[in-house]
């Protein structure tokens, strides 16, 4: 791999205060344009790993580098500004704001990101994204008047509107029925590939794994969950071997 990793975690150790459990990542790199899935049992630290990659959590040891910059050494405000500008987030628990329209929800990063300029280009990009995922007629609706699938598509547009180099997803379709989940994921992969972004997704659904370039799993042992011990390609992971 000759390209500079989009994200590189090295010798990362993280434990929540007072917890006997810790997450260990010896070496994990995510290349530009690469789609990586993360699987593992419940409670193995998948969401914690995503939060470390996003800079929401800071490792106790080791380094998390985003485009070559160590997130741990950045002041909190800088880390947040970088996150909002360069990382798209699509988490199951991330809500749409009920008082904003579809379009304004998509543009939310511009409303709260001090470094992002909400100009006509951004608005046009948001509209184009909505059109692309089939929300063209729903841009002035509020979340209360959208179906669950439509809400997830709004969340997808919000994750992509800043044209991030990295999209992080934490089980984004777990509350959707199979058809809607497939539809949302089709859109997600399509938009990520069109934009050349990297995708890192935590999922329980082994049926999705052949869509990814790589799949990593997290193994659990007493007091420790370790990432990257067994890196397999999508097809192998799908077979469960």
């Amino acid at each position: 791999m000759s390209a500079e990793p989009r994200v590189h975690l090295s010798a990362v150790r993280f434990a929540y205060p007072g917890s006997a459990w810790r997450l260990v990542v010896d070496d994990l790199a995510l290349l530009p344009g690469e789609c990586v899935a993360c699987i593992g049992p419940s409670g193995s630290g998948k969401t914690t790993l995503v939060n470390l990659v996003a800079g929401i959590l800071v490792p106790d040891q080791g380094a998390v580098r985003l485009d070559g910059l160590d997130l741990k050494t950045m002041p909190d405000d800088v880390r947040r500004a970088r996150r909002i500008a360069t990382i798209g987030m699509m988490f199951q628990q991330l809500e749409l704001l009920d008082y904003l329209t579809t379009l304004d929800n998509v543009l939310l990063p511009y409303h709260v990101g001090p470094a992002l300029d909400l100009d006509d280009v951004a608005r046009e990009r948001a509209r184009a994204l909505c059109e692309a995922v089939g929300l063209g007629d729903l841009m002035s609706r509020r979340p209360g008047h959208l179906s669950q699938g439509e809400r997830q598509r709004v969340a997808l547009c919000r994750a992509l509107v800043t044209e991030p180099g990295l999209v992080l997803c934490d089980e984004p379709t777990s509350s959707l029925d199979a058809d809607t989940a497939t539809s949302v994921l089709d859109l997600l992969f399509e938009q990520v590939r069109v934009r050349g972004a990297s995708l890192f997704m935590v999922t329980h659904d082994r049926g999705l794994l052949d869509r990814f370039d790589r799949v990593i799993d997290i193994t659990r042992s007493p007091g420790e969950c370790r990432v990257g011990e067994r890196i397999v390609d999508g097809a192998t992971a799908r077979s469960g071997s």
Partner: protein
Amino acid sequence: MSGVWWLSWQHLRHHRGPTLILVLCFAVSLFLPVSTAVLIDRYEAELVARSGATPMVAGARGSRVDLTLSTLYFRPQQADPVPARLVDELSAPDVLAIPLHVGFTARGRALVGTAPEYFELRGLTPSAGTRPLRLGDVALGARAARDLDLGPGDTLFSDQKELYDITVPPAIGLAVVGVLAPTGTADDDAVFTDVRTAWVVAGLLHGHVDADAADADKLLGRTEAAVFFSGALVTHQSVSLENIASFHGHGAPEDLPLTAIIVVPRSDKAGTMVKSRLNTSPVHQMIVPRAVIGELLAEVFRLRAVLDGYATALGVSTLLLTALILVLSTRLRAGEMATLNHIGASRRTAGRLLGTEMVIVLALALVLAGLGVVATVAALGEVGAVL
């Protein structure tokens, strides 16, 4: 509009009902103590100024407060009137006595019968036309003229106290001859005339056709001392150049009633003397309005202390409710705050969002309360409006 302000505004707009309730709660809790304080301050200032400009008042024994308010604000008095001759008895080279007759109204405005000296005392000058010069003339206070849309040359009818009682004096047409310049006092709402015209309105003086010119069927009898007419003889219902000479009374003019007499001594000595002289009378009294108002205000201040206590309690309960609302709002919006935190909004964004919403709500409440205070002061800002 910056992002946080915009988000806050969108949130408040979307949740209009709760926002409106919150704004109203704040507005009421601001409006009540502020408007009360402003009104009391204005009343106090006005009462002190007007009473201070009225040195002494002579009237019938009875409520000193009623006598004061009748004199200063033309409120109908319950106590007995004083005879007109008291004006002459009180008048002296160093004492000016100004008669005052109130109790009747013209289109709802107090009709004040007085003498030209009253206009000098209060600094009332016509902005249009003249002061009342002859029987039947009236000059309108500035606000009365504006509200009634009347000016010199118009006619104003007095209010008949009982519409279905033919024994009470009929409404009298009064000629508006002038409008007084505004003074910002109770005088602006009154209709001024001379005392004799007030007596005509009260039915104590009247005018009718000469006995020789009256219809024979209305003439019931004639003696050397008097002529007796039927009640069907209609008296003049307005004063004109043709009938002015026919107006007369049937008793001694010095016994006709006055509500009060404003007494203006030229010196302290003259004031002391006239006051002590009148206060020996078993039926009359001389009061100093400033002293009476001072006693009244002392009661108001005691009431104000209670109101201030209520306002403080209201303020504290509003603050506690606000704190509760903030806590509940933070919990209800935990998901929203988590979303903002995760996507990378500044650590302070959640606090700024709630704080900005509170600032907007408070600003709206302030504006609403301010408008309420302005409207209340405009409607009730003068003592006359509440008496």
